């Protein structure tokens, strides 16, 4: 007789001392893990529910300004520094790690219109309604010393915005003209002009650093090359664009925040039709900023909310609001991709998590792998109706809900009207125009 019985040696399965980990032999044979599909589905459902349970995006409120916040400047190297300008001309530098106002000074008479850090973060450039460009040291002065600008440049025309070049020592301002400056000189190197309208925002391309984009008050977006004497191209939309942000990773794309409640993402090479129209806001969009990954961006709106979009999707993935937050004027995405800052009319700067349900603080490897697993599950089962419903649901303020309903009714009415006109006209007389093409009037070279 040849006989062998399965006989487990307990030493291989039971830990010897309490200091050891429990021994957990695994066997991945599918027949030992029945009902794989339904169990995974339930896990995905739970993960989605937990995601909504833990969605607490508000981190803190930075109060200190004595008037509405008008603009932000992100430090290119320090994650804990943020400069904010207010309507009363005050600039504050925040220590975000300790949630304190590190420094404050009155920079301008009237509004601070723009703040930009130099490429190494040693200088701060501010422009204001008093037609001056002021350069400040980013280190606070010694105790007892006055806050003095390093340099002050008086301009002949109004200034509405400033942007610093990522790679060299030049910066650009906009106002009545677009001017390219050098840090060492008090006169602009170059001024560029197209038409007579006011330019109210300017932004350097982060990769192709000779290219700039401006938004003008004649509803156009203008592209410049700082090496050339003439502007490059211009595209005219149906309504005014308020702010412009370049995608930091796909630097040929940029997104503009428009007065008509939408955001438009353009490809520089093809300005005739936007790549994507981003809906969901119910009032004018005032500011937009990209995440450093270039996958997402955040937008601020006059409807007292901020929304987060995937760069390639039309509808927002999340909406942040509080009862006390008024019209949001400026917004910024931190360079570590974890936080969002919003500045609003009621003098507060708010700090939010970029991922509403993310756990802050130290995450142990097991926890991290569990989060990753839950992410994968949520993605895998995202199309299931029940999971989709839970993941998509957001509580929005009453005024937003009402405005959404109203906008939907208006849109439906327009569609019905267009269909009726089409029905009673000659075939082909009323063409179908895609939503993308409706908002771009013309492109000029």
């Amino acid at each position, binding site marked *: 007789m*040849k006989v062998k*019985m*399965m*006989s487990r040696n307990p030493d291989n399965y039971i830990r010897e001392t309490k200091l050891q980990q429990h021994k957990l032999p695994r066997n991945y044979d599918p027949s030992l893990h*029945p009902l794989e599909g*339904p169990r*995974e589905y339930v896990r995905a459902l*739970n993960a989605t529910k937990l995601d909504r349970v833990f969605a607490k995006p508000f981190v803190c409120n930075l109060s200190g300004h004595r008037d509405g916040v008008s603009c932000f400047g992100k430090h290119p190297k320090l994650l804990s520094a943020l400069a904010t300008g207010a309507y009363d001309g005050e600039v504050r530098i925040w220590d975000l790690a300790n949630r304190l106002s590190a420094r404050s000074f009155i920079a301008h008479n009237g509004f601070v219109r723009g703040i930009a850090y130099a490429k190494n973060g040693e200088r701060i450039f501010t422009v204001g309604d008093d037609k001056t460009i002021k350069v400040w040291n980013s280190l606070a002065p010694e105790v007892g010393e006055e806050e003095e600008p390093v340099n002050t440049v008086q301009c002949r025309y109004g200034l509405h915005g400033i942007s610093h070049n990522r790679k060299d020592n030049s910066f650009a301002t906009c106002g009545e003209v677009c001017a390219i400056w050098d840090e060492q000189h008090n006169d602009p190197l170059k001024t560029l002009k197209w038409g007579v309208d006011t330019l109210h925002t300017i932004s350097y391309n982060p990769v192709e650093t000779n290219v700039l984009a401006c938004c003008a008050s004649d509803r156009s977006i203008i592209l410049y090359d700082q090496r050339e004497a003439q502007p490059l191209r211009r595209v005219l939309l149906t309504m005014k664009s308020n702010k412009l942000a370049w995608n930091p990773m796909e630097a040929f794309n940029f997104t503009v925040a428009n007065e008509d409640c939408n955001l438009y993402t353009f490809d520089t090479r093809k300005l005739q039709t936007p790549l994507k129209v981003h809906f969901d806001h119910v009032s004018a969009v005032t500011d937009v900023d990209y995440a450093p990954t270039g996958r997402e961006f955040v937008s601020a709106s006059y409807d007292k909310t901020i929304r987060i979009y995937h760069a390639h999707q039309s509808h927002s993935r999340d909406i942040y609001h509080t009862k006390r937050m008024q019209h949001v004027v400026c917004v910024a995405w931190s360079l570590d991709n974890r936080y969002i800052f919003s500045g609003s009319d009621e003098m507060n700067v708010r700090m939010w998590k970029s991922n509403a349900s993310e756990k802050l603080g130290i995450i142990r490897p097991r926890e991290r792998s569990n989060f990753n697993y839950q992410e994968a599950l949520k993605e895998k089962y995202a199309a299931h109706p029940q999971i989709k419903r839970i993941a998509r649901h957001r509580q929005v303020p009453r005024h937003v809900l009402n405005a959404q309903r109203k906008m939907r009714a208006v849109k439906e009415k327009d569609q019905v009207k267009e269909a009726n006109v089409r029905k009673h006209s000659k075939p082909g007389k009323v063409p179908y125009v895609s939503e993308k093409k409706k908002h771009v009037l013309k492109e000029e070279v």
Partner: protein
Amino acid sequence: MSKAPPKGRAKPKVPYKRYFDTDNAAADGDTAGLQPVKLKRKNQQNVVGEFIRMQTQSKASKPLRPNKVKAEATDPDEARKSHVPPELLAKYSRGEKVEARGVKTRHFKEQQERKEVYLDYATEQAARTELLLQETAGQLGADEGEITAEYRQEQIAANVDLQSASKHFQLKLEFGPYTMRYSKNGRHLLLGGRRGHVAAFDWVTKKLHCEFNVMESVADVQWLHVPTMYAVAQKSWVYFYDKKGTELHCVKRLTNVNRLDFLPYHFLLAAGNSAGYASWLDVSMGELVGNFNTGLGDIRLLRHNPSNGVLCVGGSRGVVSMWSPKVREPLAKLLCHSTAMTAMTVDPKGLHLVTAGLDRNVKVWDIRMLNDQPLALFRLRLPANELDVSQRGMLALSQGNYMETYTDLLSGGGTGDRTKLPYLRQRCDAFVHGLRFCPYEDVLGLSTAKGFHSVLVPGSGEPNYDALEDNPYETSKQRREHEVHALLEKIPPELITLDPNEITGVDAPTLQEKIDAKRQLFHLKPPAIRMNSRRKMKGRGGTAKASRNKQIVKDTKRKEFIAEVRQAKKSVIKQHSSSKELAGDSKPKPPRSVLDRFKPKPQKKHKT
């Protein structure tokens, strides 16, 4: 186990030149005339002699365009696949690949292809973990001129190690025919005697948890999700007890229960009673999620299919019907025997259904195909009264007080020629009333009218358990942890269907649904049209005009709808009649003549 992760996209054939790469021509010049020797790991090095030159890992040393034949031979994919035998990959595979050919856009096609690469990788990694399994299955081989069926238990016990020999034991009990259950991890045993005796113990260490008499008849016993709680079907109601024998609960809604079963992933206690009711009790909520009359009469045979949670009920008419708690009709029915059934079981993998009837046959059915022909047929001299299938596919059956096991469900059966002999035989002192293989052990438990036998069956149990699923060595802390996780993953009873993976598939309409949709087209009614006329200034048309306008709009809408439906009907009829006409004789109509009007008119067809 360190391996390069899979790559979705094929590598570009020509590696891009990087700033740190040296000039290729110069490198070639250096190595001219020297033979490159491949660097091996230390434990693989068996080359004796001088190394001329180590091949470095830098890209510069590779030829820019490898010649094609060589590239095929050293294709990394091929080399990788050859490590894992295909039958092992098939065991861990989750089905066939999705063909990217039918996918419409390039983006999704690429996405699908990349996903398949990752799935392949996952399958392979799972298959490679076979190496790490610690135990091997037991086996029993006969010597020259002997057969395994003639070995007695005492002989086997004498020839195995002490630990295994201690698993062979016998309990002589006096409270009448016994039923028994092993816990899911195979560590604990529950015995219930017809005359009220209930005993729970750790059968490996022989440590008794509790033993008492309920002073009522006991029809069946069943462990719940943890080996600290169990249910006992008593004379009229079902009672829950804990490990110490304390009564936790009495479920009066489950009456006259004959058979109990437990669905561990759904937390459902299934019961079949003598009036033909099938009931599912959610033990985590204490709620009856399903309770209805199956119309089968007294339910004596009840087993759940572990792979999908469907309850199989065997009837006295030889029909096995499959039930889900949320559907009042059986999901499937299978005529297994022309006589009454005596026993039924489902194998732990959920692939086969084994039934026995009074016609002395034991049949093995494919539970997923539900063909009318059994896969295997065992012809016995007496009808089998108990059946069970082990984790590794061994079949045990009892005829009266006589038990036989067969090594394989499908090929082990004698189909009349009696050449296939049983693997092991055992004669008990009394009629066998319960028969279960112990999970993760080479042991078969037999409960008889006079007690309990633990029989050694080498090679029946799965040797390697997964500790996150069932752990025979679990501590109380681990058990609690496991309970919480299991509760979080409790599958809702609505998901009990014949195909458990339905939820991961695409929700495409079935043929029946398509047919129904077409059929419905012929009974559609125009929907009610609600129209609110616009408010007009005073004096601009009265109510009469408004209501007339309303009527006009309604009429046009209804007409439009009717026209649409008619069009759709026509297309359906055309679609179905054209194929018929092609098949049948299609006579061309004779040309109409002027005098045709005097012909008698054909009678109108009545609606059927």
